[in-house]
């Protein structure tokens, strides 16, 4: 059987009820999981001897501005054994948004989750070092949310005075 069917079968036999949706658009397999199961799911995918998804490529989030679950976190993980990139999604519906951090499972998710905190304001529980990544420390807004204007809010970032 091919890779996608192998993954779907292994995942369904262990986590059948936590999976909300499986999609396959343009040949990319994607699982949507309940948000409290994300760390156990990630651990299973990493440690299973047939799957071995040992590298986390990316962690990001999507802001659906008007839906009830406003944010969705997206994880891209890669397995050298199967040579396959898998996508995991998880919907967040509380306000302020929080989710558990996967950096105990994949250490490379450390900086990606910091960037997602900086840009979207999603707090990651159990993250070793949750600080802002790009914007200066005193900045109060989260730029990639849909209610932040692209030109910025005047006065939110200080500029040195032109002394002449």
């Amino acid at each position, binding site marked *: 059987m091919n890779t996608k069917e192998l993954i779907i079968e292994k995942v369904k036999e262990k986590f059948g009820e936590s999976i909300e949706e499986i999609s396959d*658009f*343009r040949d*990319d397999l*994607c699982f949507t999981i309940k948000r409290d199961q994300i760390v156990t799911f990630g651990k299973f995918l990493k440690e299973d001897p047939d799957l071995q998804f*040992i*590298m*986390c*490529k*990316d962690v*990001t989030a*999507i*802001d659906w501005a008007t839906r009830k679950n406003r944010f969705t976190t*997206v994880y*891209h993980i890669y397995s*050298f054994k199967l*040579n396959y*990139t898998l*996508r995991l999604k998880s919907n967040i519906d509380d306000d302020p948004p929080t989710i558990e951090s996967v950096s105990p499972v*994949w*250490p*490379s998710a*450390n*900086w990606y989750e910091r*960037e997602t905190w900086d*840009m979207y304001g999603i707090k990651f529980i159990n993250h070793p070092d949750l600080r*802002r*990544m*790009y*914007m*200066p420390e005193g900045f109060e807004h989260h*730029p*990639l949310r849909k209610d*932040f204007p*692209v030109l910025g809010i005047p006065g939110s970032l200080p500029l040195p*005075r032109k*002394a002449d």
Partner: protein
Amino acid sequence: MDRISQIYNDEKLLKKLHDDRDITIEDVLENEMVINMGPQHPATHGVLRLVLRLDGETVTGIVPELGYLHRGYEKMAENMSYIEFIPHTDRLDYTGTMCNNVGYVLAVEKLAGIEAPKRAQYIRMIVSELSRIAAHMVAIGTYAMDVGAVTMVMWTFREREKINSIFDRIAGARFTTSYTRIGGVASDIDDQSISEIAKFLSELEPALVEMDKLLLSNRIFIDRLEGIGILPKEDAIALGVTGPNLRASGVEYDVRRAKPYLFYNEIDFKIPTFTQGDCLARYFQRGDEVRESIKILRQCLDKIPNGEVIANSPKKVLPHKTEIYSKMEELIHDFMIINFGINPPVGDTFFSVENPKGELGFYIVSNGSGQPWKLKIHSPSFCNLQALSQLCKGAMVSDVIAIIGSLDPVMGEADK
């Protein structure tokens, strides 16, 4: 001037400055120093700020701080159409610029379901490999300059100037070209460009031999690089390092072989790998990749087919300029595509290509309109910099420079 007067008027700080007059030798021997290697530094390859905690001259901890070049790419991408974003992708990895264009356009083509013709794919491969050589020339040259051999930067930039004049002839600009379009490339290349590329390749090989003779028998260079900044294989995978750094640590992963795009499955090339994982291995890795690129380019120049360079899909690909000015259908399509954008189906895709610095990936979420709902750039320099704090523990201050140079970060990409 405001800040200076603030410092002299601050009571707490003045008191500290006055009271701290008795510095003894025990202060230095018992306490650790915290130093700032600021954003403006000749050897940090861009605006990267490092805060080092030193015990004498040995580094016990290092914290990188990014964000000094954060230009807001992802936010701007949500407000402009897919075609308008192509010049912005040029400025991501600004040392090898054509590869970024190719990566973005391939991701959009995957989402929209367009296929570019074969000649366009070969042209994209040729310019990608030329950019790879250019980027590695900058990396090798500035790395040698950081470590002390200043002549190398002049020699490698001399080779890079030849590549820039080839790009000038093909695309019209020296290095930020925005040459690819959705559905193909902007214009065709002529026979003189092909002969210029062949001439450049024949001049590059003896130049590489000369550069090797200069550096590799130099005792100082080898001592400064060997055994420094060793990255073992499991740590490299766990920290998410990509590109030549991953291959120099023993993992044979190259996107051109794992998930072939363009026509790399028709070209015969090796993937160089080293197992030591230290700075010298990363330096050799880049030199070997330039030699492999020369092989790939020679095969591409032989195999390039004739044909057109832009796909024939009227609703999604811009028509040719001469037709817009003379025919009605093309005028309407041009108007609709420029103003309302190509409308790919609702969904999301992830596509990655092999950049000279690592694996550049684009994650695009589309809601059916002409502008993306979300665009995430997975940049290799960001992933490589994550390994810095582990690599520098226990090294000397001057080794920090050598390690940063060997990881080769480009801040335009790491900060997005």
